[in-house]
């Protein structure tokens, strides 16, 4: 068995536990795993931002400052119930995700999808909706990195959204991004009416992509919107 990321040989440790339980497939070597930082303990209840190392003025009770701002804005209040991110977006994870989505190493989804399965246990949802790519971007990359997580997890995905805006997001300021409407359209309203939607994406940075998707879904009758991302930037 080789580490899915660095290719090192993995020697599985046989313990008493593993003799009795069905052995879980090991995908990453210890060295790679050690470089990932799980988000646990004290973090924002709405967006998973860790409070550890965050200046006090960026925190208000159980919420981070960004979430306070989102929730304080009548336009955005109550759109996103809760986002759960699993890992800190550190330099190592940046490299892993970049190899996954930009270089196109699809099989890394096999590791990330496990994190998805784990997180979904804590959520009550009806539909898994991946954040879509534009046609152009999808062709370029060959696959949608959010969709691949759901497929590899063996779960059913609902392609409820379509992206109509293609410009690179990173070049815009927060304000610009927030005020861009119409990034997405709804594919089929019947699919989502009255449903609890779980949005799936790779990274939560400002949350604006997820907020736009969430807002649109709610406008079209979705009951609630939560989200999962691999990383919290």
């Amino acid at each position, binding site marked *: 068995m*080789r580490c899915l990321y660095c290719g090192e040989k993995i020697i599985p440790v046989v313990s008493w536990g593993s003799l009795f339980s069905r052995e879980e497939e090991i995908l990453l070597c210890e060295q790679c795993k050690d470089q990932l930082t799980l988000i646990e303990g004290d973090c924002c209840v709405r967006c998973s931002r860790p409070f550890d190392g965050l200046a006090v003025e960026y925190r208000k009770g159980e919420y981070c400052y960004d979430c306070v701002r989102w929730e304080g804005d009548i336009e955005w209040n109550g759109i996103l119930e809760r986002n759960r991110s699993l890992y800190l977006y550190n330099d190592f994870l940046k490299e892993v995700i970049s*190899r996954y989505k930009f*270089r*196109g*190493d*699809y099989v890394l989804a096999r590791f990330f999808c496990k994190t998805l399965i784990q997180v979904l246990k804590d959520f009550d949802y009806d539909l898994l909706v991946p954040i879509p790519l534009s046609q152009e971007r999808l062709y*370029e990359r060959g*696959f949608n990195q959010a969709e691949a997580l759901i497929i590899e997890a063996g779960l059913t995905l609902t392609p409820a959204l379509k992206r109509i805006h293609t410009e690179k997001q990173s070049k815009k300021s927060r304000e610009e991004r927030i005020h861009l409407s119409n990034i997405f359209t709804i594919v089929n309203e019947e699919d989502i009416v009255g449903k609890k939607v779980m949005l799936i994406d790779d990274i939560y940075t400002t949350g604006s992509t997820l907020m736009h998707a969430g807002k649109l879904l709610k406008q079209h009758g979705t009951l609630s919107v939560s989200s999962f991302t691999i990383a919290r930037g």
Partner: protein
Amino acid sequence: MILDSLRTILAGKQLLREEIPFELVDSPFISKRSGIEFDKKGRAHCNRCGNSDPELFAVFPCARCGKRDTYCRACIMMGRVSECTPQYGWIGDMPEIVAAPLKWSDSLSAGQQVASDRVVEAIVRGEELLVWAVCGAGKTELLFKGIEVALATGKRVCIATPRTDVVLELTPRLKSVFPSIKVSSLYGGADDRHQFSPLTITTIHQLLRFYQAFDVMVVDEVDAFPYSVDPMLQFAVKNARKESSSMIYLTATPSLKWQRECRKGKREFVTIPARFHRRALPVPESVWCGNWEKVINKGRLPAKLLKWIEQRLLAGTPMLVFVPNVAWITKLLPLLQTFDGRVESVHAEDPNRKEKVLKMRQGEILLLVTTTILERGVTFPGLEVAVLGAENRIFTESALVQIAGRVGRDIDSPTGNVTFFHNGKTEAMLKARKQIVAMNIEAKEKGLIDE
């Protein structure tokens, strides 16, 4: 016009669509080679990097071709090659290569001259040649004449090396001696990749973007990691050469297999047994120091090593002390630092590696404890070297020859001490010493050293 730009980019290349910064036009001169092919047994093969290890292929639902598409993971860092991903190249006339006069007035040493003549000969005849030049022989200069001759006869030249440092060091030197041509410098993150040039200096990795491009391929430090152990890099070199091309290997430490082939007359080679400053190579001394691991684990320094270091700290002699791995650096460093503040360490993952090497050069650091990471490339005037635990397997014959080769490089201090501190002599230690002694004898016989 657009076709001209495409030719510049595609000549001798194998590029993915997204690596071409222009619109593609329909042209009989633009070739498409499939990226992944299957053999009769259904085993995948990557045409870009030569991978055929089933563990290094994966399948994904491809949005481009709509199929379950096999892709290569071995070369994924250069972008994904899958079944539906063609590699673009150029099959029309190649851009012209014109003569470029060599602008260099220094002269070669007698040893370099012999090798330089052989290089020219190999290039003219399209042959393979190993240049076995001792550390500090000055191997760059001996290529100059050969490159000049190659360019004058319309041949495209490449110098490839496993290490980025070497690319950065060679580029300005070659630019200065061939001022009339464009010299491409390629390594991860470099910008020159879209130009066509008669002379390319590159890391071996970057050769994965070339296909049947070069008439002359020079591979520097063939024995260096990772080229020596990575079949992908060896494939890349082969794939980047034209079918009839010459191949020049440069090294101070050929593998045992190659040494044997040289002795048996199965490999064309030329040696430069002496340094340009005409002084013999320092011959390593061996000093037994018993179970040094135990001594250090008790928080003390092996007495003989301590004495060796103390003398040099007093004299202000810069030192490198090589240890088998990072764990020993961690143990040894605090012991040494209690004695003298001018002691530091470097290892492969050390983020401050460059700064420390610089401080050593400036004399702020007198002793660096290090792993084999510094076995190549670095030189400090007046340096002396110790290897602690020379019996460790990591210190192969070639590693020890390279380490000894750090000493006496400078014309102003052409000698110096090299000591292997060990707990039992190994074959590698004996062979390393023998190789160095043999080179000195040969150099003396050929009149290449003055002592």
